[in-house]
């Protein structure tokens, strides 16, 4: 590069030289030139002092030295944040499978969730999650799964009657009612009453969520309506889990604005346990969920904008000013596993053309 003393070293090369950014060979070339060239030596000294002055000037631009947090503290905080993030992702995956199961009525934004759903849902066998499920709930979870996957006697009729498309109508009222009668009595279900066979609406004063101690803190009046009525009022967007018989549909009174009122769709597992899907204006659903958990020890969190929340017994996802929630007397893991299995069997059914 520098073959003769006539060619002086360019300024930037001297900077790089002093910054130790040159290769060994380049350094040797420069040093041999410097040894023979006064002008470049002077230039090098000038640049060295410029460099030092720059460093000195920049050194004044520093805040008073304070001791940062300890490495341990900061890594703990980072780990906590990772865990929160993982929790949110799990919740999002859960919401994805719920939306997949419930499908319609949740608009275009629900669709973007669906991409995450199958990947999360498909390969996971419910058995692998069983350790997380306790005692009797293990059975209920398994029962729900079998109902969906194996399609035993009576629900099989329902399933045959209801095509697997998400826009399909839910099982016929009579079959659903029959199923409810055979099941163990439910505290939360009107005992022995064929909930969906009456075309006219009856007034009830309770939201009748799975919790037996549900109280009507919301002051909302609910009508139990027939399936046809529900479909008439809400069209395709009756919130429900595909593949499970519907035993009851309840509709809150109109709020007097244009928004569709809160709707609760109860569906039954073969074990007799009831899963309720709730869809409605965010404030109403929040109130209902809060009133369902009267124990202050684990209050249901208010679901903020576009939030997802989950706890044992219920899961919810919010889109704008509406919330879609699912409640069941199951721990969240079982609920999640069940939804996954329903999704998987829905897909299988669709693929094999059953």
């Amino acid at each position, binding site marked *: 590069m520098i073959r003769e003393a006539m060619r002086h070293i360019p*300024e*930037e*090369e001297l*900077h*790089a030289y002093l*910054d130790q*950014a040159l290769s060994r060979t380049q350094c040797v070339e420069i040093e041999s030139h410097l040894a023979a060239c006064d002008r470049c030596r002077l230039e090098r000294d000038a*640049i060295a002092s*410029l*460099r030092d*002055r*720059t*460093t000195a*000037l*920049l050194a*004044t*631009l*520093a*805040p*008073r*030295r*304070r001791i*940062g*947090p300890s*490495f341990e503290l*900061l*890594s703990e*905080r*980072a*780990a906590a*944040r*990772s865990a929160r993030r993982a929790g949110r992702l799990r919740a999002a995956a859960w919401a994805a499978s719920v939306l997949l199961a419930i499908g319609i009525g949740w608009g275009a934004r629900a669709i973007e969730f669906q991409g995450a759903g199958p990947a999360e849902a498909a390969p996971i066998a419910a058995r692998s999650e069983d350790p997380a499920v306790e005692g009797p709930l293990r059975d209920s979870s398994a029962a729900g799964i079998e109902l969906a996957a194996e399609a035993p006697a009576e629900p099989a009729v329902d399933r045959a009657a209801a095509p697997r498309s998400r826009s399909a109508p839910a099982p016929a009222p009579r079959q659903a009612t029959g199923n409810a009668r055979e099941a163990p009595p439910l505290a939360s279900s009107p005992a022995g009453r064929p909930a969906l066979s009456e075309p006219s609406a009856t007034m009830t004063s309770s939201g009748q969520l799975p919790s037996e101690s549900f109280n009507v803190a919301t002051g909302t009046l609910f009508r139990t309506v027939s399936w046809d009525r529900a479909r008439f009022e809400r069209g395709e967007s009756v919130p429900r889990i595909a593949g499970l018989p519907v035993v009851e549909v309840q509709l809150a009174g109109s709020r007097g604005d244009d928004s569709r009122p809160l709707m609760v769709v109860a569906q039954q597992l073969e074990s007799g346990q009831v899963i309720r899907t709730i869809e409605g204006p965010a404030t109403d659903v929040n109130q209902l969920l809060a009133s369902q958990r009267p124990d202050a020890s684990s209050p249901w969190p208010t679901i903020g904008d576009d939030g997802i929340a989950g706890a044992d017994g219920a899961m919810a996802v919010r889109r704008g000013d509406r919330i879609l929630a699912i409640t069941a007397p199951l721990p969240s893991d079982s609920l999640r596993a069940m939804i996954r299995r329903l999704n998987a069997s829905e897909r299988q059914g669709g693929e094999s053309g059953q």
Partner: protein
Amino acid sequence: MDELEKLYQTTYGAVVRFLYRKVWDADRAEDLAQEVFMRLFQHRPEKPRAWVFAVAANLARDEARAAIRRRKHLTLMTNDPGQAPSRIAAADEIVEHDEQMAAVQEALGTLTHRDQEVLLLWDAGLSYPEIARQTGLAVGAVGTTLARARRRLVDAYDRQHLDDSRGHAAHS
């Protein structure tokens, strides 16, 4: 000692300084530096040192954008087009520093964004190849840029100092 712990112990101060020279607020610089390292511990990238300064630069840029938005908002609120809140805010900050610091800050402000970036990254301890990667310059151009940046910083500072001494005859 974990590699990241070592990096944290040796680089935290440099990251705070690097950020401080961009946001000019000591507390904010520390907050952002801690954010940078928390992200580092979460992501564990392959080249952690370069990564740290790249993230720091990004955070500082976001911060600057937010500051511009705040200033615009403030301008709307004060409803006084003749008054530039940014100047006032800057002046308030400067009062807290000593005079020399303010002078250097102003001198640094006369450099182009790219010159500043390269100079600050160098001062933070990054190598030429690391600086090149972060700024998108060719490695060969880093020396040229640094040469220019150093000259301009010192020139701007000296010019200012000269103006100052003319202004106050007694100034040392």
